[in-house]
């Protein structure tokens, strides 16, 4: 019996259950274990992990976005508030400055007014004083002149009133100017 092609090509029956059944049962189990351990397990786990990572990242980005938006609104509000406040401050100070200027001007005006008034009064007083002095002098001179003329000592006290009256009637208008 030679190990030639005839013996090598011995065939089992086409439709029969034999030892191959057991082989194939074990082979299927082993192939299942191989595919589960080396292909489906790692790849599914890997894809799941990656999906979760991406989901986390998207969620994180969304969270950050929300936080940023919150910050933005907050800062915008603060900015608006600061602007408003600044305006308020400027307005307040402008008003105060205006008031102050007005007060200063008014005080100055009133000072000037009172100074003017004082000056007028002084002037008036000086004038009155001068007039009175002049009146005295004139009355004195008149009496002296008259006494020379009449060679008689006039009673100064008696006549002074008379003279003054005369001066007043004659000179009042003239002294005025």
């Amino acid at each position, binding site marked *: 019996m030679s190990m030639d092609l005839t013996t090598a090509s011995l065939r089992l029956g086409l439709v029969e259950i034999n030892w191959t059944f057991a082989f194939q049962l074990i082979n299927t189990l082993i192939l299942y274990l191989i595919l*589960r351990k080396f*292909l489906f397990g790692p790849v599914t786990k890997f894809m799941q992990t990656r999906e979760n990572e991406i989901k986390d990242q998207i969620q994180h980005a969304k969270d950050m976005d929300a936080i940023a938006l919150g910050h933005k609104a907050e800062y915008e509000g603060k900015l608006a508030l600061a602007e408003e406040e600044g305006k308020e401050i400027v307005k307040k100070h402008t008003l105060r400055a205006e008031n102050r200027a007005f007060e200063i001007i008014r005080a100055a005006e009133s000072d000037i007014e009172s100074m003017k008034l004082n000056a007028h009064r002084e002037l008036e007083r000086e004038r009155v004083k001068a007039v009175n002095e002049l009146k005295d002098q004139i009355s004195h001179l008149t009496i002296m002149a008259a006494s020379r003329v009449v060679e008689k000592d006039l009673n100064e006290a008696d006549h002074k009133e008379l003279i003054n009256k005369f001066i007043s009637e004659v000179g009042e208008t003239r002294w005025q100017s």
Partner: protein
Amino acid sequence: MGAEGFGPRIVFHIGSIPVTETVTVTWLIMFVMLVFSILATRNLKREAKGFQLVVEQIVKVINNLTKQNMGERNAVWAPFVGTLLIFIGLSNIIGLLGFRPPTADLNTTMSLSITTFVLTQVFGVKSKGLGGYTKGFMEPIPFLLPLNIIGELANPISLGFRLFGNIVAGVIIMTLLYGALGSFTESLLGLAVPLLQAGVPAVLHIYFDLFAGLLQSFIFTMLTMVFISGAME
């Protein structure tokens, strides 16, 4: 045990146990899948491209197929579904490389369909309880109990024989065709060169190996998912 016919060849013996080409080709497929799986998952990157993209797509498609047919909570069945789909699919189209498809052996298809049958019964009892499981056979009326049992037992047989029949038919037809084409070339053209064998079988290879092969692997897997998830509901 005959020397001729369309049965699988015996490659060697372990003791008195014959090991056929069905088994050795299955080992080849297992080895290829082992190498593929290790290479595929060796260096997974966050940004998938090239080969990793293909691997991810395969796993994703099988995961989604399982979820669609068995529900979200049965996603753990994906490796089993994937094993059936990949093993039967590769077995069916390996004829293109000149190997005898392992699924052209009734032992292979029956071992797969009986596995499905056992899983169906075990998980049916597990999820419904023994009472609920037995009650399922009394529906819609207890009178139909024998028919229900026959129907349940017919499932693995039809599942296994459908796949076996489709694939073995392809194998037989292709073998006959090659033989016929060989003698045609000799008698019609008078040439010792098998000229007609090149080209002409390609169309039938596309139909029997690619089309029927992938279709049958899909049918087997779909029916398995339907049976198991049906028993669990």
